[in-house]
C-alpha cells in the first residue's frame, strides 16, 4: 500500500457502452473514488475502448449519452487514462478517434501497471 492511507485504485473497463450499464456505473464510482483522494487509474481494453469513441449519438435509442463525462474527468483531477494498444488496433481505432487524451500502452506495460495496484475493480 502507498503512504498515508492512499491506495492505488484501478478501474478496468472491458465492456462496450449502452449494451450494458457497466460503463456508466464505472464513471460514477471513479468520481467518488477521486473525491476520497485515492490514486485513481482508468483502464480501457477489449470492447471497453469503445466507451471513448467520439461522436456517440444516442437519440435513436432514447438513452442518455454519457460520453461527455469522460471529458469532465480532468476537472476532477482524474488524469490517468490508459488504453491498451492491441485492443484499439483490433477495433480499427486510433487515438484520434477517442474523446479524450489517453496514454496508450502495449499489453506488457498494461500488465505491469495492473500488477502495481492495491485495488482493481472490473466493469
Amino acid at each position, binding site marked *: 500500500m502507498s503512504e498515508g492511507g492512499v491506495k492505488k485504485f484501478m478501474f478496468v473497463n472491458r465492456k462496450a457502452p449502452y449494451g450494458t450499464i457497466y460503463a456508466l456505473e464505472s464513471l460514477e464510482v471513479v468520481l467518488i473514488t477521486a473525491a476520497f483522494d485515492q490514486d485513481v487509474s482508468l483502464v480501457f481494453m477489449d470492447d471497453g475502448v469503445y466507451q471513448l469513441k467520439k461522436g456517440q449519438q444516442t*437519440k435513436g435509442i432514447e438513452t442518455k449519452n454519457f460520453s461527455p463525462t469522460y471529458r469532465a474527468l480532468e476537472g476532477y483531477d482524474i488524469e490517468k487514462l490508459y488504453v491498451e494498444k492491441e485492443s484499439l488496433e483490433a477495433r480499427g481505432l486510433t487515438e484520434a478517434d477517442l474523446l479524450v487524451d489517453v496514454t496508450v500502452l502495449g499489453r506488457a506495460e498494461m500488465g505491469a501497471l495492473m500488477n502495481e495496484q492495491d485495488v482493481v475493480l472490473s466493469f
Partner: protein
Amino acid sequence: MLHIINKSPLSNGSLESCLRVAVPGDILLTEDAVYAATSGNAFEGKLREAMGRFKVYVLQPDLDARGLGDRLIEGVTSVDHGGFVDLTISNNSCQSWL
C-alpha cells in the same frame, strides 16, 4: 429465417456460432453486435466472407449510439427500428442468438 445477433464478435462467440450453423438468410446486427459491421474491426474479414452467403443488416440507431455511423462496411444494409420490424415479417421466423 432472420438471425438476430446482439453481442460484440470480439468478446463473445454468438455471431461466429450463427455463421457456423445457420442456413444462409438474413442477419441483423443489433446492440453491441453492430461493431461487427464496422471497417477495421478484426472481425471484418469473417463478416465479408459471410456476406457472400447472408444478407447482413445493421440497426442504425445502435450504430449511431456507439459513434460508428461513418464506419459501416460497404454492402451492409442499414435499417431503423421500423426496418427491424419489416425484417421479422419478410422472414417466416426469427432467432435471437443470445
